[in-house]
């Protein structure tokens, strides 16, 4: 062995870095409509190739084609467009509010609006999402009041979480939205536990777990797959592959596997990849997975192929690690534009209605913001109380916290 060649250390690198020309030629994109739609009870082994393809419904011309088309009505589609537009407008305003010092932090969804808004419509009332910080579309599509979201972001006197949580870490049991954790991946396995509990209780409600491409590297991703696979939990395991963690591209988490959906194969879990910028495809695949879960067929893993067009958070500047124009080169396009074009082609939408809707949406966001700011922003106006530091940690406040609260003079 002394004569064998020296070993080499391999570190994956993205195709381009700042200064280079964006290049997505390595991303193989199947034709819309070309990927089969197996029955929901197909043997996982028989559909492994779905983990290496991309299910798409909207083609370049804006038509909905193939076996995954047709899961939504006209009304649902226009509502979906409005949800995505609302999310984008909401993001724009909150991003600005952060720059104005009205909050400490914000995280936007730019380019990924289809994923959470379309997904929410495939679930039923009572189902529970375990989201990350980039699925506010679940709330918006379910009609959670924007002003409550903003109250949380501003940590003001009406903040439902009483100032305790980082901005965007919403919680709404009523809207099937589990309290967000700042620790990545922890919620992914909790979701499996929730789904197990629902099965144990002979309930009909299912769970949906959410995780980013970078966070699939975390151990709790594995734990979730192990438990979901072993107990056939009624759950949808969602991986949002937006190509980037913070400064690290998805290759650092993914390694040699080709896709993130591939991870599910090793657990016998049906695993699909879908065009995350295609509202119709996201909805159709989510519906397929929800039906599986609800029919006692067990978990499904879905990888949403999308692109994080904005910065990771307001603390981040992506131009330091990727070409500025990379987002424009992203081959799956913009989800709002794609759905808009489809609706126009479908004859139920127009450029004028779109402009008008944009204005309406922005008005409603601004109105909500005005209302929320009336209750205060991080550094001015109404605030949660200092008592809120000590309250609500335990159902009943133990003596040592009572003493400390007293010391704090509240």
């Amino acid at each position: 062995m002394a004569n064998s060649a020296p070993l080499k250390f391999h570190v994956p690198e993205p195709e381009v870095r700042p200064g280079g020309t964006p290049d997505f030629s390595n991303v193989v994109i199947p034709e819309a409509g070309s990927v089969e739609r197996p029955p929901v009870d197909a043997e996982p082994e028989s559909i492994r190739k779905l983990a290496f393809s991309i299910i798409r419904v909207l083609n370049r011309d804006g038509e909905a084609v193939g076996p995954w088309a047709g899961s939504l009505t006209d009304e649902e589609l226009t509502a979906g467009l409005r949800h995505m537009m609302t999310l984008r407008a909401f993001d724009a305003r909150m991003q600005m509010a952060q720059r104005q010092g009205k909050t400490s932090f914000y995280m936007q969804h730019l380019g990924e609006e289809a994923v959470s808004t379309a997904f929410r419509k495939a679930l039923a009332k009572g189902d529970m999402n375990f989201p990350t910080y980039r699925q506010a579309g679940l709330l918006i599509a379910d009609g959670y009041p924007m002003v409550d979201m903003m109250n949380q972001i501003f940590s003001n006197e009406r903040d439902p979480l009483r100032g305790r949580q980082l901005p965007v870490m919403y919680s709404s049991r009523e809207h099937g939205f589990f309290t967000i954790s700042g620790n990545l991946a922890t919620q992914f396995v909790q979701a499996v536990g929730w789904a197990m509990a629902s099965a144990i209780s002979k309930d009909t409600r299912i769970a949906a777990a959410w995780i980013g491409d970078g966070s699939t590297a975390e151990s709790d991703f594995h734990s979730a797959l192990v438990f979901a696979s072993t107990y056939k939990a009624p759950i949808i395991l969602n991986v949002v592959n937006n190509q980037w963690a913070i400064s690290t591209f998805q290759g650092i988490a993914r390694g040699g596997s080709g896709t993130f959906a591939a991870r599910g194969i090793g657990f016998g879990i049906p695993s699909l990849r879908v065009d995350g910028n295609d509202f119709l495809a996201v909805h159709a695949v989510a519906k397929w997975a929800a039906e599986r879960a609800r029919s006692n067929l067990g978990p499904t893993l879905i990888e949403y192929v999308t692109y994080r067009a904005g910065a990771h958070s307001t603390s981040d500047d992506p131009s330091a690690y990727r070409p500025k124009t990379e987002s424009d080169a992203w081959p799956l396009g913009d989800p709002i534009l794609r759905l808009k074009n489809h609706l126009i082609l479908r004859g139920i939408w127009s450029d004028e209605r779109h402009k008008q809707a944009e204005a309406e949406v922005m008005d409603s966001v601004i109105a909500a913001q005005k209302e929320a700011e009336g209750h205060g922003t991080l550094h001015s106006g109404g605030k949660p109380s200092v008592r809120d530091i000590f309250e609500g940690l335990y159902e009943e406040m133990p003596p040592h916290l009572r003493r400390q609260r007293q010391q704090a003079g509240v």
Partner: protein
Amino acid sequence: MPRKTMIEAIRDGLDVMMERDKRVVVYGEDVGYFGGVFRCTAGLQAKYGKERCFDAPINESGIVGTAIGMAAYGLRPCVEIQFADYMYPAYDQLTQEASRLRYRSAGDFTCPLVVRMPTGGGIFGGQTHSQSPEALFTHVAGLKVVVPSNPVDAKGLLIAAIEDPDPVIILEPKRLYNGPFDGHHDRPVTSWSKHELGEVPDGHYVVPLGKALIRRPGAAVTVLAYGTMVHVALAAAEETGIDAEVIDLRTLVPLDLDTIVESVKKTGRCVVIHEATMTSGYGAELVTLVQENCFYHLEAPVARVAGWDTPYPHAQEWDYFPGPARVGRALIETMEA
């Protein structure tokens, strides 16, 4: 009243609660069909079915993580970590998630979860079957921490924990499972059937969280102990002839500070003992609270007896374990100080 070992008492506590409350589910490694490596869950799967008591994959983070999800759903999971030494993979879920669910969601979600784990040494388990990690939990806001020292408390505290609306960690001193152990490893083993604290009432009863108990009233010095060390403390008092007041804390968080302060104000002296490593152990918190609250009553420094600041060695177990000789020496020194 029937006499039970601590194992039987714990099993009985689980049984009572599974019977009363459909939401109680029990799982962990080897917990289902086999009934647990210490047999604490034996018979429960047969009685309540695989949906209420089942085997888990060897993944502590997954066990606690799924249990958090179940608790948030509305069940009352009571999971077992096979040895406290193996709770570390679950430490993130326990300390960053279970502990903060209620707080961060402002009560929108809660986490009524119980995690049981055998703890402590004295069984030649070496570095990885002997640890006492209680201080790693007492430092974490949002958890409650319980350490029973006998069968009757073990059952009553367990029931209280399952009924508690917040996450509770129960550290079960495994060396006490089958009998009281006072540290005299070279004497014949005694069993709970010969001990009054082995008298465990049938059915439902509660030993409330946050209440200490004076095991031995005394006037000379206060001894603060929990778990196995309660028995060691009683032996040391007996053997030194020092009239020690031995307090069994039972719950470390929330702590029954009133009982402690009242005792130390009376005795003017205090010895704190635990089996865990000394530095930054829970004993440090106890000493600190005593000197904060009883400074002007203290006639001697508060003494600590604890495990050495090393891993728990296999062969030198009895030189590591803070047995009655070491505790006795501390009592004498504290009396003479």
